[in-house]
């Protein structure tokens, strides 16, 4: 996978993850172009389109579009599966996720994605394992935060 974009129906970017190194300018250009193309498609159309030399796989969940760019030989259906799996993970983590969850906790959304995919490849196919890793990392974070608060209070 080359990159993943999440954007709203209004075309606002909610999350972007690039697995190929590109300059900011290029990223912006690609994002703009893709958001337009995908939003222009009718709801009954299939989820795939050919774009430049890549294949775009997108799916809409509620008001959010999840959009992935894959290479020519990659499997479109498994990419849809990846998108779906990511949505499930977000859902489990936030508890019936909505767009606002992702807006306000965008760093968490990234952390979850990073536990699921690494360098554009699926890292962990088990939902349970992904969530466990996130929970433990969160726990660690809380602990350190707690300690730092304690330190402050102690002084």
């Amino acid at each position, binding site marked *: 996978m080359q990159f993943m974009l999440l954007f709203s129906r209004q075309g606002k*970017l*909610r*999350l*972007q*993850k*690039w*697995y190929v*190194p*590109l*300059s*900011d300018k290029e990223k*912006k250009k690609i994002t703009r172009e893709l958001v337009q193309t995908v939003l222009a498609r*009718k709801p*009954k*159309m*299939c*989820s*795939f*389109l050919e774009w430049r030399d890549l294949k775009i796989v997108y799916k809409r969940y509620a008001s959010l579009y999840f959009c992935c760019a894959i290479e020519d*030989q990659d*499997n*479109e*259906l*498994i990419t*849809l*599966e990846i998108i779906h799996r990511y949505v499930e993970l977000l859902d489990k983590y936030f508890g019936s996720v909505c767009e606002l969850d992702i*807006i*306000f906790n*965008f*760093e968490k959304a*990234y*952390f979850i994605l*990073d536990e699921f995919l*690494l*360098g554009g*490849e*699926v*890292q*962990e*196919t*088990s939902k349970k*394992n992904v969530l466990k*890793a996130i929970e*433990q*990392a969160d726990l*660690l*974070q809380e602990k*350190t*935060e707690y300690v*730092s*608060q304690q*330190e*402050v209070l102690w*002084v």
Partner: protein
Amino acid sequence: MALKMVKGSIDRMFDKNLQDLVRGIRNHKEDEAKYISQCIDEIKQELRQDSLAVKANAVCKLTYLQMLGYDISWAAFNIIEVMSASKFTFKRVGYLAASQCFHEGTDVIMLTTNQIRKDLSSPSQYDTGVALTGLSCFVTPDLARDLANDIMTLMSHTKPYIRKKAVLIMYKVFLKYPESLRPAFPRLKEKLEDPDPGVQSAAVNVICELARRNPKNYLSLAPLFFKLMTSSTNNWVLIKIIKLFGALTPLEPRLGKKLIEPLTNLIHSTSAMSLLYECVNTVIAVLISLSSGMPNHSASIQLCVQKLRILIEDSDQNLKYLGLLAMSKILRTHPKSVQAHKDLVLQCLDDKDESIRLRALDLLYGMVSKKNLMEIVKQLLQHVDKAEGTAYRDELLTKIIAICSQGNYQHVTNFQWYISILVELTRLEGTRHGHLIAAQMLDVAIRVKAIRAFAVAQMAALLDSAPLLASGARRNGICEVLYAAAWICGEFSEHLQEPQQTLAAMLRPRVSALPGHIQAVYVQNALKLYTAVLQRQEQAAPDPQDAPPDADADADAADAPGAAQEAAQLLLERLPQFVQSADLEVQERASCVLQLVRQAQKLQARGVPVAAELSALFAGELNPVAPKAQKKVPVPEGLDLDAWINEPPSDSEAEDERPRAMFQEDEPRHARPKAQEADDEELARRREARRQEQANNPFYIKSCPSPQKLYQDAPGVDHIPVVCIDLSVPLRVPGLPASEQYVKLEEERRHRQRAEKGGRKHRKKDKAGRGGRRGGSLPDSDEDIAPAQRVDIVTEEMPERHRPVAPPKSPKKEAAAPKERKSKKPKKEKGRGRDRDRDRKAQALDLWLCSTPPAEPAESTALGTPSLDTEVPTAPQQPSEPCPDEGDREPEAHKKPHKRKKQRQEKERSGRDKKSRKKRAEDGPPLGTGALEEAEEEPLPPMSSYALLAENDFVRMTYEVRGSLQGGSQVTVSLVLENLSSHVLKSLELGVLDSLNARLARPPGASAHDGVPVPFQLPPGVSNEAQFVFSIQSVLTAQKLKGTLSFIAKNDEGSTHEKLDFKLAFTCSSYLVTTPCYSDAFAKLLESGDLTGSCVKVDGITMTFRNVLAKICFHHRFSVVERVGSCASMYSRSIQGHHVCLLVKQAEQSVSVDVKCADATLLGSLLDELRATLSAC
């Protein structure tokens, strides 16, 4: 200090955190930019504080702003600060920010190396994990080089959580720093069998991705992956493995055969659509790579097509789309199987989704045949009517034209029908493709002589309705058709029923609203029409020579004002309007024509016949000419095209250089190369101009690169069956009903024809007993439909090699095949003797491929580490082995006792082949060029690219050089070292004297004089392979590198230092990389004129053509682009991107090779190497 901390935390309480920022942005919708610039100022303040907590908060907000499109590269250093925080919370935020905004251009990135290294070795697995995740996004070549070892260590971490991340990130590291692949690969391979499924799947992912970039190197892992595939149940992993096999099979067709069964099993059993789709795709790839389309695989094709049908019928748009996509892949090689599902594809044309409709259209293009063309086009026309949106309609229009005109109109049997379709298409409003329709009209009218009368009538009707066409918005696109209409009416005016009327239509005042180039054609052709009118009148009148001279002629002119006078009058009236045209071309032609008409009128008034003179203006028949027709003209005797016409400018360079330089300065020396250059330029310019001219000239048949094109025998012009036009056909109905009528007419015609043919066949059968070749064919098969009119085609190439194999010849060829086979035997055995110490890996794979997988588990584990095995028997076959498909590959030694039997079998088989070939010949056009013959010829003799490098009492070195497109100008030398002694050889070291052109890649820090250690020892009798990378400056010439292998030979008595010198030869062929090339891309390349060419011819070659090709492919890394009979075009590419094209032709006992290459030096070197190879054939 304490106070500071408290202050920091209090500060923090008043700061905005991320949530506040997001909320703020949402509340400032109208002045968002202003609000954000305020926030950025605040953030800059925060970043200046000492507290890491505040900084982390600021960085977190910046990351959010980055997503909104704001530049945060100025904060890169602060991000690194936060990354290096000891607290996980901050570190996490820091790495996230870095992974979002760092890229290769970020200069501070090099400051992170040590921090990342520290985090990688952190005791907390989450610190390590975060660092790995971040690194995967911003790894640079420098970071990859510096951290490769650390990550490699992590691949064996105790925690699977870290292992899998480390394995995955290694892929990114390999991409940035390819040198790390070799040392890391053994460990990566180990991970394929990791106890943790996550790590295992990560390793599969990485190897699969690597193999897709460079499949060749991973062929040896096939057995291992095969085992994984048959044992794994994880669909994610299975998909990757199957994809990997898809990349490997083109290199090793036998692997494909082995895969078919497990893949079809999966197709049957799986319920996961993604896996099913992957399997189907790989099966298709396998069948394409087997290419011969062997009959025993038709079941697999059927299965795929069946499953795809289910996908296409599914209500899910996604499955439908993918089904059609995969179908089109099958169509390329197995059109018959797909054609059965035409109904489904047509159905998809009605789909709501445009992307699905477009896919279906693509499929239709390949599905047409003579039989169904009319029906399909009829349906497409209906869609044209229904289509909303011009883009899709234009697509439909181009597809209709493409479908009808493909392969020199090979599917069009009735051109009246086609013309009426084209006329119907002109009704399309606002299409951009008027010129396409016009081009088709011109092409058909010129090349199909029998259709001209009909075409002219239709075009006259079109001209009559011209005001309609020219009005309003349509002016832009569709009026192009009038260009064709006017030209056809003028050029073939002898077929016009009422030329006066057409002339009147062409001179209507509204014509001046048309674009200039069309008006020009109008004017020009008006003159042609006038000539036609005049001619008719003069022919009708009694010949003036028979009649008494002056008086009678005067009387004639006086009392019969006639059509010609009327026409002339009309012209004189209307042409002045064109003379005033703003378009220069129109103006010029109009005034010219006007004068001509005036003169003609004057002469005519005096009774002088002028028609003959006027028509001489347009005399001469138009015949289509093939672009390469010149080649067909034999060079007249006594004409030497290579001889100088004038004396060459001067004698040889060497002679004149010195004496002249003394007297005349350097002038001549400068002048000559310049002239040469100019010549080249001039040549290129002329070539370009000629191509332009040909492209614009409708009388040149454009070269069409389709390999499937059928060259129909072009009978003489007189033999074209002229069809009487049924006069009941209304000439002026350019509407749907017209084309419908032709469909009916055509059906009737076919019916008649079939009845006739059936009768004939019957008689023939009675006469010849079972000799009737077409005995089993369906009466309705495609080939039986003889076209009503033929396209007038001059074959583009020389006929002998393009003509489809004539059936009566084939038995002879078949009979010759066994003989050839026999004569090959001794050679083959010799070859095998020499092969003894060749690449073990390949043999191991051979062995694995020849046998059934579960039979020998021991062996397949041994094969898992192919570089170490020594015990694999050299002869790869055991007679008892069950290998049903591999009968041909049995060594000849085993065959000898059954020689007779074998021969009989061969005879039988050749008989069978004959039958099957005949059947195929009837079934339709050959699918791929050369595929037919290949299936029937004998297997190739074994070949090896390993050559002996050096040998002494201790060790034998063989080597092979391969270029790779991956790492720029690099070649990999695979060196096989075999210990011939009873000593243990150790501390092997390879020293090579670098040349300016080639350098051995040494480990970092080593000097150019250091040797490179060979990473293994050699116990007695063992051989092993090591790989060395050389970087190459110039690939234009071959070269040799001197080198020495030094080692310590040790046995019980002691050890000695030994040396073995060698000369490593890099041929130019070793710089080539087998690169597949499509025939149209190939044609473009040749047409580009960038390549220089030369030729080599070698006599006395007895080898079959296929073997010659295989040899060239193997030893010089070419791939066959297209093969037709005993002629083949081949392609390869150097590691520096030079294109090399070959045209190999076999005549009796000789093979000639035309080489074209972008560089003359490389061309010369390659020619020498090819000559050497061919001489050895």
